[in-house]
């Protein structure tokens, strides 16, 4: 593709016109843009408007200026929720990335047992979040769960009630649910790496571990960025498992910003303040995504296989 475009570009005068004629018409993005406008941009503008109003969904929104912003930004509950959200993002990334990277690399091998195990690892991804949460709720029940059926006293913890413990329970469940997906990404990435690189490394005397750090890891750079972006944005807006796990009324230990936003909006009917949180989430999400693409040079999309 790059090559063809350069060829056309070399045509000198009239090249711009020619370039326009190549490739599909710009109108083809219209449906996508339409969807984006209706389901993303317009709601975002409405949320921004609502964030300056007091609205209980029954009476008409009343303009209150920056009141909601002032109250949310100094509200200790909202700040706690934001800190907790960041904790979930960081810990989730630290937990999920190495596991999926290693699993992905391992399952990329052609051995039959790896293929079978790879298929099994993939199973959690097929379950809906609600089903996952309900299953874990039953497993973690202090009186009827795993501890009671296996008779292991250590498992009889206040998993969901202990405010320090519950965060790690949630992170574990998120990891259980999403590691398979990221494993799949890395598996695909590893399989793209040309075998000649490994052959060359082997001739130079590099062992498996050296090969991993000097070939696999650098070659997976963009996969890593993709996976990290999905992970971070996913954690930022994480909702369903926590909601179901806590029966819709989360305690302080699981009240991450998306959950607090829902509770403020739909349980407490304070849609103005909930909209402030929605905007904050959208801005943080955008900032992180932009930062990641900028820092990693993702936008340039250089081929890593030059000279091969």
């Amino acid at each position, binding site marked *: 593709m790059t090559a*063809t475009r350069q060829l056309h570009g070399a045509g000198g005068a009239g090249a711009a016109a020619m370039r326009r*004629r*190549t*490739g*599909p*018409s710009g*109108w*083809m993005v*219209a*449906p996508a*843009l*339409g*969807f984006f406008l*209706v389901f993303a941009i317009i709601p975002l503008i409405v949320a921004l408007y609502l964030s300056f109003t007091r609205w*209980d*969904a*029954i*009476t008409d929104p009343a303009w209150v200026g920056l009141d909601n912003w002032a109250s949310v930004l100094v509200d200790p509950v909202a700040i706690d929720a934001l800190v907790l959200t960041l904790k979930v993002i960081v810990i989730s990334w630290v937990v999920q990335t190495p596991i999926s990277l290693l699993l992905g690399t391992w399952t990329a091998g052609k051995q039959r047992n790896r293929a079978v195990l790879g298929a099994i690892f993939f199973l959690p991804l097929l379950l809906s979040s609600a089903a996952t949460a*309900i299953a874990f*709720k*039953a497993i*973690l*029940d*202090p*009186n*009827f769960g795993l501890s009671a059926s296996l008779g292991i006293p250590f498992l*009889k*913890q*206040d*998993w*969901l*009630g*202990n*405010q320090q413990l519950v965060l790690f329970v949630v992170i574990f469940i998120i990891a259980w649910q999403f590691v398979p997906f990221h494993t799949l990404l890395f598996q695909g990435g590893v399989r793209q790496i040309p075998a000649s690189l490994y052959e060359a490394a082997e001739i130079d005397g590099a062992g498996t571990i050296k090969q991993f750090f000097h070939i696999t890891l650098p070659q997976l750079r963009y996969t890593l960025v993709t996976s990290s972006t999905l992970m971070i944005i996913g954690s930022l807006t994480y909702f369903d498992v926590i909601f179901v796990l*806590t*029966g*819709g*009324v989360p*305690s*302080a230990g699981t009240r991450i910003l998306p959950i607090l936003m829902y*509770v*403020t909006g*739909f*349980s*407490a*009917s*304070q849609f103005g303040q909930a909209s402030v949180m929605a905007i904050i989430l959208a801005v943080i999400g955008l900032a992180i995504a932009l930062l990641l693409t900028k820092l990693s040079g993702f936008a340039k999309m250089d081929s890593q296989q030059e000279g091969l």
Partner: protein
Amino acid sequence: MTLRTSPRRRTRMAAVALGVSALMLGATACSSGGGAPSGSATLWGLTGTDEDTVLGPSLKEWNAANADGQVAPTYFQNDAYKTKIRTAVGAGSAPTIIYSWAGGTLNSYVDAGKVADITSETADAKGKFLESVWNQGVIDDKVYAVPMNATTPIMFYYNKDVLKSAGVEVPTTFDEIVDAIPKLKAAGVAPFSLAGASKWPSLMWEEYLVDRVAGPEAFNKIMAGEADAWSDPGIIEANEKIQELVKAGAFVDGYASVTADSNADVALLYTGKAAMMLQGAWVMTTFKQQAAEFAEKGLGYTTFPAVTGGKGDPSNIVGNPSGYFSISAAATKEQKASALKYLTDGVFDKGYIDRMVKAGQVPPITDIDAEIADAGGDFGTTVYDLTKNAKNFQMSWDQALPPAQATALLTNLDQLFNLQITPEEFSDNMNKTIGQ
């Protein structure tokens, strides 16, 4: 691959693209609900028991007999309904007949002029309802909602065998509860089952203890929006009692992880792992489904114990008086007429009451003692008598309060039960929500 397109083909594709977007816009624009013929009233109800044994059969009968006063129902799952109805009422696209639990929600509908005043139209029907239940639909002496569902007070359940083998009598005072705790723990069972993770079961303790210690006035002051109403000494004392129970180990180990939607709290009682439990009358259905024999022989039920020296009358009960029907102010005249006819003549007609009683539910209707004793057995009679004789029937606080305060209440109560805040901090936090 390079795709070469002629100008004409490009325009055609553009037209298709535009068409797709337009279709999509159209689809979102006309997705509002309530599309029934103009004369017939619409009704949104709940799936489950309401649809199966209460509204479903009733409306089938009603619509067959009233060709010119049709009521078209749509059923929703409980949580989905709660979010949907609020926005529908706000946007003026509510059904003719609006289902609610009265309380704070009904107040906000009335404040915004979204439901019709039906005082004169329902004057004749009023007489057949239990007064404490009827009054929840009355705001400023005007009727805005009429009861349509079973009455479900919060009951004090116990496992007869567990209490007996631990040598404990059913407590009738708070002090007896406190005395029973060490005995039951020594017998290796949890004194009380509690679904603390769901939060609202904890609220039942708060509601009863505040009532028994301080009487209904303490909460009435909160509802009236009086400044610092949560700092009432009675509320602080009740919360001290709650923390006393927590510290004494009254509630099952890991109660903060026990959820009510999985019925884990009910299971603790019928498996004999816990001796007693405070829960709504509605869990009787679960007992019957999951442990029929226990429900018949091993399960005991009574009202909440008294607090010695407390101001509250021990006959007072808390819970859900009923579900309620209001009429949307936005409905057409014909729709309102059809709806009113159903509310006054169809709801709680003989078949309606019979079906409920047969299903073990207790309608908030006067003079049906015999029917309930026949079909509902001892439990039905207990619930009916408690409701009939209650000096005060306090609606669950999370329904009675405006949504913002109710949400804050559950959050703070959770922290109170987990000993993260003191009763004084609880009162301070809640005082800040008054007026929200």
